[in-house]
């Protein structure tokens, strides 16, 4: 039989090479069948459904999370699109208002400028007229002064006052040249 004294002596057992000793086959077979069937039942009924459900629930929760993330992303994308649309609208409106204001102000400025220019031109013309009149008056005065001066100088030089007509002719001749 397989039973023998469990000693570390090299000659502790004689007979067949243990793996080929047919007397132990029956008991090994018996216990293998029991162990394997018990293990199989425990695996099939307990371990495998358990691990399978854990993995499945993980995959489900991952899929759910991914779906949630996708829907949140879609929401945020929509919000971004709405925001950008509002922004573009506001920008366009601001542009229009700015353009309008600028045009209005440019027109007003142009009108003011034209009015001022007109006034200035009128003033200028008036001033020019005044200048011309003054100049004329002054020229007349200059002629008078020149004639008086000439008469006085000539009287001092020759001791006799010249004729008014001759003085006027001479002054006119000198002013002309």
């Amino acid at each position: 039989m397989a039973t023998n004294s469990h000693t570390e002596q090299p000659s502790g057992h004689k007979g067949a090479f243990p793996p080929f000793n047919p007397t132990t086959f029956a008991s090994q077979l018996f216990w293998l069948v029991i162990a394997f069937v018990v293990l199989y039942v425990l695996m099939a009924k307990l371990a495998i459904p358990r691990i399978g459900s854990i993995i499945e629930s993980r995959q489900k929760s991952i899929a759910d999370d991914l779906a949630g993330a996708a829907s949140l992303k879609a929401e945020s994308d929509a919000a971004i699109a709405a925001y950008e649309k509002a922004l573009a609208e506001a920008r366009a409106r601001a542009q229009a208002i700015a353009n309008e204001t600028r045009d209005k102000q440019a027109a007003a400025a142009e009108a003011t400028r034209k009015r001022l220019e007109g006034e200035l031109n009128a003033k200028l013309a008036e001033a020019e007229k005044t200048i011309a009149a003054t100049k004329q008056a002054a020229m007349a005065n200059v002629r008078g002064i020149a004639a008086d001066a000439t008469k006085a100088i000539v009287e001092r030089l020759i001791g006799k006052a010249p004729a008014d007509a001759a003085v006027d002719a001479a002054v006119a001749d000198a002013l002309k040249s």
Partner: protein
Amino acid sequence: MAVDPIHQFQIIDLFPVVKIGHTEIAFTNSAAYMAVAVLVIMLFLIGGTARRSLVPGRLQSAAELSYEFVANTIRSTAGTEGMRFFPFVFTLFMFILVVNLIGLIPYTFTVTTHIVITATLALSVFVTVLVYGFWKNGLHFFNLFVPKGIPVYILPLIVFIEVLSFISRPISHSVRLFANMLAGHITLKVFASFITLLGGLGIFGIAGATLPLALVVALTALELLVAFLQAYVFAILTCIYLNDAIHPGH
């Protein structure tokens, strides 16, 4: 102290349990290690997932990883229809893996170093393939042995070879696991015994014993790989054989 490298494979009766016919069935060290393996697997898979956390901890991650690893292996080799055998393949994989890994702990017993264990497991796969193949496909299951596009004059030879390879599957399936585990443990034991042999030879012996010690460390790492790889190979071959039962028409 010379140690017999075969001693570790000894089946030891701990206490008798039942008597079937003339055969006494005792609770053995092998049975104890199988029970421990079942317990360890359940602790790992049920205990590890006790918190059912959405973000798994280390143990739960490992449990889920082993689940998905086997599930992906089945899907890639036998398609989604193969998932009906998921409990079977997962049980096979975990049982062989845990039994192999427990066996790597010094002074323990490795259940899979016995041909009767691996042969029973391989035969259970073989029978499952046969029963499911005929149940699902009826006589079309024989298409498995008749590859398409083969000239008629060599067809008998091909069919003969196919049948022969089909029948020899459980043998290669079981011997591969058995021989790998047996050879690995014998090698480990032999090199480990060199350490004690050389260590008893005085100062030079102790210096010389470092070489087999380093070898044993390296071999243990290799055996860890083999323990996983053989469980994986057994599971993936099971998937491939089951695929034949599900889709017999090549």
